[in-house]
């Protein structure tokens, strides 16, 4: 009976073996404004006394590529390794978090052992202080403004604006050429609810800051939600 219990305990121990120790599970990267792709290396070591196998890895976005150094998935005690995650960031600016999850050994599908996160900071070169201008139905159709500042080493000019609704007049006021602008938006009337998309085109040499978008909304006073 003692032999059987020993076998049982040994098997149980094997099933629960696992664990890689990462130098960092969160990496913060400050990328340039025109960053297209970003690479993050996560170094790890098997500090347990058991062999650890990376059974599976997954990402939360198809924009992430994952490579395990030399394609090696099994690590003996004391062995070191590296996971390289590369991110396609051409659509993003501001702060973006991307994650890679790892299942080790017999991790259940819903409980991966490791979550690696890269927090990428990409400078926002054209800053819209207000994203949406709002008017209540039936109120005075006053002019409202969006403050726009350029946060770049080179000047960025607004070259044009378009609005999806004829009900709104949009004007650009230059406060400091290439640096600071105001967008003045005036509805002709506020009798009907509606939403207009205002597109702002700049001459920025970084593609992701060439076209920006803001909204003008006329809506009724919202009833309190239950």
């Amino acid at each position, binding site marked *: 009976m003692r032999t059987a219990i020993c076998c049982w305990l040994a098997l149980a121990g094997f099933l629960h073996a696992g664990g890689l120790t990462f130098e960092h599970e969160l990496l913060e990267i400050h990328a340039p404004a025109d960053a297209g792709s970003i690479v993050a290396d996560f170094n790890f070591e098997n500090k347990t006394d058991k062999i650890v196998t990376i059974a599976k890895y997954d990402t939360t976005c198809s924009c992430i590529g994952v490579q395990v150094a030399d394609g090696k998935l099994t690590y003996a005690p004391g062995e070191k390794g590296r996971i390289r995650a590369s991110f396609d960031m051409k*659509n993003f600016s501001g702060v973006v978090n991307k994650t890679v999850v790892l299942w080790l050994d017999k991790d259940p599908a819903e409980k991966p052992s490791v979550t690696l996160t890269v927090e990428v900071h990409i400078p926002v070169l054209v800053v819209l202080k207000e994203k949406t201008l709002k008017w209540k139905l039936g109120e005075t159709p006053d002019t409202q403004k969006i403050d726009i500042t350029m946060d770049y080493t080179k000047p960025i000019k607004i070259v044009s604006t378009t609005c999806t609704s004829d009900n709104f007049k949009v004007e650009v006021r230059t406060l400091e050429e290439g640096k600071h602008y105001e967008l003045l938006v005036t509805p002709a009337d506020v009798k009907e609810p509606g939403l207009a998309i205002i597109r702002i085109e700049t001459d920025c040499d970084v593609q992701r800051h060439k076209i920006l978008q803001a909204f003008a909304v006329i809506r009724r006073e919202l009833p309190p939600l239950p």
Partner: protein
Amino acid sequence: MNAAAQFATVLTIALASAGVTYLVKGPPDRLVHCDPAKLKPDEVCLDRVMNEWKGRVLWVDARPRADWQRNGMPGAALWNLESSENMQTFEADIAGRMIDGPRVVVYCNNEDCGTSRQVAERIKSLQLGNEVFVLYGGWRALTAAKLTRDFPRK
């Protein structure tokens, strides 16, 4: 009794116990248990969405487009963080659907998926004033409650 026989005996007893447990207690409970007291400030339990709010929310699916096309909450808008997608198209679509002031609930693949929180932040940054939440348990909570639908291939 030799070691193999002893091992087989222990295994038989364990399997029999598991079988009895299954018969008495039923299959494993796969529902996502959501404790409102333990939620993060921007999270919401599915139970609250479906019972207190009667499901009258704008669902936002933060999974990849192929998943959104295959199945999900009927009428859910798509907003993910794939680099192949146009974020301004997402903004315009969702802004138009938020105009009547519904609460917005974002879901992604599971509770470990950080995408829904980032999408929720982006929706809030539209400054439309709607309440925006992340669904606790995400896709797993919805499927366990049998609320999702498979959509016909287009």
